[in-house]
């Protein structure tokens, strides 16, 4: 459903994403991991059509995101890491606006808005301006907006940031049900426990390149790491900090 072909992004001479190829199938929940600055967000923003790749192509289904953007983007729900929403719209107005961008209107949209606000416990806030929302509430609103048009695939950057435990659990359930019904989810995250528990496959990006990719078992085989956790694998692949270095940074307690 999501296919990346030799995807590359350059900022001047800096290579942010270096020749990445991936295929994520319908019904699959795929995790993208990597240290800060590894190129995860850039990759996701290229898939969402916000950034233009320097080379390579992105397909959602059979539509190229940059050649046939209107067809490709109809299938996509994108959840960014920073929840910038129009501050002077109410939650319901924002969702109605987003539905309009996808060409949807009328009673179906109104029902869907009520349904999503109910699920994310925002019903009592539906007529309040977004500027009054907390960070977590904005994140919930953006997640609702990504689901409003019933997309075929969801691309999500750091989904759990700002969510309370209940909402985080809800989101996990939504993603599971979504993939069970044939949807595709690509998410980047730093929460390794969540990636390990939820993702069918995982790719670890390091300096713009895929350092390893596969199921947990495949990753262990590729790194010859034995039966270790994803955290161990991640640190081996990306280079962890030794305990004595940490002690030096923290210094003596006052």
């Amino acid at each position, binding site marked *: 459903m999501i296919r990346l072909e030799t995807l590359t992004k350059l900022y001047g001479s800096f290579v942010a994403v270096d020749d990445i190829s991936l295929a994520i199938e319908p019904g699959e929940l795929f995790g993208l991991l990597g240290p800060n600055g590894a190129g995860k967000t850039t990759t996701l923003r290229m898939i969402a059509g916000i950034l233009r790749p320097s080379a390579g192509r992105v397909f959602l289904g059979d539509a190229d995101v940059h050649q046939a953007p*209107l067809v490709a983007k109809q299938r996509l729900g994108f959840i960014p890491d920073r929840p910038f929403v129009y501050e002077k719209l109410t939650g319901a*107005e924002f969702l109605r606006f987003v539905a309009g961008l996808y060409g949807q209107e009328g009673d179906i949209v109104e029902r869907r808005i009520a349904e999503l606000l109910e699920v994310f416990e925002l019903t009592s806030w539906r007529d309040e301006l977004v500027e009054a929302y907390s960070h977590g509430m904005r994140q919930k609103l953006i997640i609702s907006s990504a689901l409003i048009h019933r997309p075929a695939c969801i691309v999500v950057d750091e989904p759990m940031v700002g969510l309370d435990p209940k909402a985080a659990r809800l989101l996990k359930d939504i993603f599971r049900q979504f993939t069970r019904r044939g949807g595709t989810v690509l998410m980047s995250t730093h929460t390794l426990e969540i990636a390990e528990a939820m993702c069918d496959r995982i790719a670890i990006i390091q300096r713009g390149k895929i350092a390893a990719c596969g199921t947990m078992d495949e990753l262990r085989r590729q790194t010859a790491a034995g039966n270790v956790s994803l955290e161990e694998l991640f640190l081996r692949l990306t280079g962890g900090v030794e305990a004595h270095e940490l002690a030096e940074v923290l210094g003596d307690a006052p």
Partner: protein
Amino acid sequence: MSQPSLVRVLEPKWRTLLQRLRETRDEGWGRPLGLALVGALFWVAAFGVLYRILKYFRGVEELGPLLAGKLLGLMLLSFVSMLVLSNVVTALSSFFLARDLDLLITAPVDWLRFYLAKLGETLVDSSWMVALMAVPILAAYGVIYHGGWWFAPYAVVTILPLLVVPAVLGSAITLVLVNLFPARRTRDLLSVIALGAAAGVVLVLRLVRPERLARPEGFRNLLDFIAVLRTPTSPFLPSEWASQAIMTFLHGPLDMLPLVLLWSTAAALVTIGAFLHARLYAQGYTKAQEGAERFVRGGVWGWAVGTLLRPLPVAKREFVLKDVKLFFRDATQWSQLILLAVLVVVYVFNVKALPLFSGEQIPRFYVTLVAFLNLGLSGFVLASIAARFIFPAVSLEGRHMWLLRSSPLDLRTLLWSKYWVGTAPLLVLALALTGATNLLLRVPPFMMAVSLAAIVGLTLAIAAMALGFGAVYPRFETENAAQIPTSFGGLVFMMATIVVLVAVIVVLSGPVSAYLNSLYTGRPIRINARIVGAFVVAAGICAAATIVPLRIGLARVERYEF
């Protein structure tokens, strides 16, 4: 524990400024050179006008220095009033809403250092433009009254406390207001108060017709006139002290009292300001964290606009609806309508006040000429309005581009919506403005038709250029829409608009002069190929100035990366 210096506290600010300068240098010299050129032109023009006035005053026995002093006092008074208003608005963001506040407040910086640093930041942010405007004015005084080289440092010493006083007053007013209202409400309130006050000053200044005061024959006798000039506007105003300090230096005898008054007042106010800050800031800052607007329901007008837009495709309709809602819910945006109303009233009033129909009958020739030139002025008024309302449209979408770019929204729809949301009201205004002024001028039907057709073409072009230039020179990081038109791109847009206005007027001057000729000779006008050609060329210029900027804007928006 030793405290960081003021320079250290303000480091993020000046380092950002340095980095911006570096980026400007890396982008090439075109932009700074353009800005320097426009700045220099402004300075030369301001200097030239004032030089002529002061030269004339100098030639008037006895009254000359009095008039010059009065004029300086008035200019400085208007500067101080503007500065108090702008300091109030700036202080709100630097003391209460700025992004560096979390860092500074959690750091162990003492309150006095914090106050002085933020006061300095407020002062520089709100006063630099006024300080630059003062340079050609004071230079003209220095040159006419032979102030010599010592006048420059003397003027700096005089003007500096005049900048400190409004900065302290402005930030103190803000401090009190924030303690009374939540900061977001205060910001809305202030935008309205500031613009309302500015609009009021402009209206009053214009409606009292100050040009009549320039004619001494309007007074009963000369003694009355001199008596008015000799009385200071108010002996307690710092602007009056500054004016006296400068005039006594230039015209003698030198009096140090005004200077002492200025500096001691500034010092006393800073002390009082610091005291107020120590007492009220912590509470105000806490209040500034609260207070967003709550509960908005679509009213009757929302339903009416929605119904009106029903025939549009859903994406366009929702986009237009969203833009209209955001505009009327954001006080920093809609409050600019107050200025717009004043601009229109002053403009129509000026046309009405023209001495065309007073006393003897002025030939139709001049009326028609004035009506034609009125076209250029109306165009300029429309350009200023477009700069305020249409130019920032693309920049204001910056933070939300993730949504627009990841959705299947055709970017042409985005520009289409932005264009018509801006153009429709502008067109109504343009037709009303031109129609009303033409009726006041009692122009003949030919001129009415030409000017209405021309203003429609120009409005379509001006709106397209505002949107196009706004897309080419976006300011995504700015939160306040009112600051966007004063950017470099805004300047380029205004200059480009003037070029188009001049081009259309020059082209149309052919048919209009043929018409004037026929009025003069009394023979009917002959429509020939040249006249038709001129109309076609004018229409062509307007069409090109509409289509090209929109296309360039679209190409630019498609290339944005976030």
